[in-house]
Each structure stands twice: as C-alpha cells, then as structure tokens.
C-alpha cells in the first residue's frame, strides 16, 4: 500500500470504521512506514487534546429552572402560555388543508343553489271574490274604468 492511500484511509482506520479487509493492509503498512505512523500518532494526539474538554456541570436545580421558564406545564394552558399560533394538523399539510376547506365551502354553496324552492305557506286566506275585485282595481288603474 502506498502512503497516499494509507493516509486517505487513516482517519477511518483510527475510528474503527473499516472492516478487516480494509484494515489489514493499513496495519501492515503502518508496521513498516514511520511517516504514516507519525500521522496516526498526531491524530491520536489531537483526539487526546479534544478529550480533555470538561464542560461545566448543569446546576442542581436545572430542571426546575426550565420548568419555571416554561410557565405552567399543563397542555391545557399552552394556548395562553405560548400565544396564538397556527394550529398544527397531525396528518394534513396546510396546502391540503386549504384545498379541503375550499372543497367544503364550494359544496355548501352549490348545495344551497340547487336546493328545491321552498313552498310558500301563509295564514292569510283571500277569497276568489276578493281576488277578482283586486284584479278589477288594477285594470282600472292601468286602462281606466271598464
């Protein structure tokens, strides 16, 4: 194996990301190549330095702080806690939701349009004689006394 090839795989070798077939030639090459061994040593050195990072410990009341910051945790109050937001639909994206709403609105509109006309019922009863009298009056208005 050439050094160039070895070095391109050295990072994966170090992290044990190579299977045995790929690792074996690198291992053999490292036994005989001082420069590549130095390369691996440098990599391990950097890993050692990075491992020295010690993050501060979370405060003992960290959980309480977060819960306090969130306000009341009951989901019942989440509307008031977080303010109004567009409601999230579990299995429907917003464009699909808009399309569905449009279809429903169109359905309601057309259902009203093609509905059978309502029969008119009135409690007022007009006799035939009264209707004839009414017709006569109308004719008189338009054509004069007959």
């Amino acid at each position: 194996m050439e050094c160039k090839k070895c070095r391109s795989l050295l990072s994966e070798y170090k992290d044990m990301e190579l299977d045995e077939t790929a690792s074996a030639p690198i291992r053999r090459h490292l036994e005989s190549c001082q420069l590549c061994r130095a390369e691996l040593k440098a990599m391990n050195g950097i890993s050692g330095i990075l491992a020295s990072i010690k993050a501060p410990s979370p405060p003992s009341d960290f959980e309480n702080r977060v819960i306090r910051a969130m306000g009341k945790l009951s989901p019942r109050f989440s509307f008031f806690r977080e303010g109004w937001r567009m409601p999230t639909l579990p299995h429907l994206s917003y464009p699909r939701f808009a399309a569905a709403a449009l279809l429903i609105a169109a359905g309601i509109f057309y259902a009203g349009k093609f509905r059978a006309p309502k029969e008119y019922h009135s409690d007022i009863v007009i006799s035939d004689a009264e209707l004839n009298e009414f017709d006569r009056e109308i004719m008189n208005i338009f054509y004069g006394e007959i």
Partner: protein
Amino acid sequence: MLIPPDVTKPRQLASNGVEEAKLIERLKRGDEDAYREFMALYKDTVYRVIYSFSGMASDIDDIAQEVFIAVFRKIHKFRGSSSLSTWLYRATINKCKDYLRKRRTNTVELTDSIISGRPDASETLLNEARAKALLASLPEKLRSVVILREIEALSYNEIAEKLKIPLGRVKIMIFRARQKMKEEAQRNGM
C-alpha cells in the same frame, strides 16, 4: 510496531428504544415528571455539546434552557422516525449556531494564549484551552461533526443520521477537520 486504532469511547448517550418510546408518549401528554426525566437523562450531553461548540461557559445555562424549551414545545411534531437524541443533538447545534451568530463571534472565551500566561495554569487547563482553540479554528459544519465524533464518540453512521448528511460526506468532513486541526496545532506549537 503495531499501532492499534484508538478504541476509547469516552461517553455514550444514555438511551434505549422501549423506554424512550414511553418517555416520548408521556412528554407529548405534557407529563411534568417526564420533562424532568428527559432533562436528567440528556442535560449533561447538551451541556457538553454547547460547551464544545461555543467554548462559552458564561451563557451555557441559558442556551441549554432554550434547547430544552424548544424541544418540549415541538415534541408534538416528533414522529419517531429518528431517535429523540438525534432531535436533541440537532436542536442543540442549531441553538449554538444561533447564539454565535447573535454574538457575531467564532472565538472561545479561554484561549491558549490567555491561559498559558497564567503561572498557575495546569496541564489540564492548558489542554482544555488547546482543545477549545482547535475546535474554534474549524468552520461550524466541520466542528459539529468533530464534536459528535471526538467528544460524543458517535459512529460515522450515527453522525450521518443525526446531522442528516450522507455517510460519505461524514468521512470526508472528519478527514478534513483532522487535517485542519493538525495544521492549527502545528501553527501554534501544540
């Protein structure tokens, strides 16, 4: 001489499938005890990632708090296609990026030059300052990958899943990050 690869796995995220699924259900129901359990389980990880990524100790509590609040508020959107830790890692790294962007800085609080000037600087402190300086020398994307590999000891596959990047890209990124850190170390005589 045979040199074995470095097999040390410093820290591993605590999680297991069944328990996590139950925990997620309780979180979605708004169970306060579940919130507490979740934080107890992951707060150390979150602190570690924030600290490694930003190098800042001063605002770490606030950033960690924001990470958990963001996760709890969006837990109803969690579909379970990935693990909860994946979600948390992504949320933590994104919060760190936001934080650094707001502060318009990419530097670390404790630099090697500051610490080495102190007569009481121990080797541990020096190494930590060096580590932070090395991480700060990397662009954010490479830094995320290196933290997940070197600090969190995740496999390449896990990193690819958590950062939603192809496996091949992870390999290249780790390789490049190590090259850059090596150059940085040589430049600063580490």
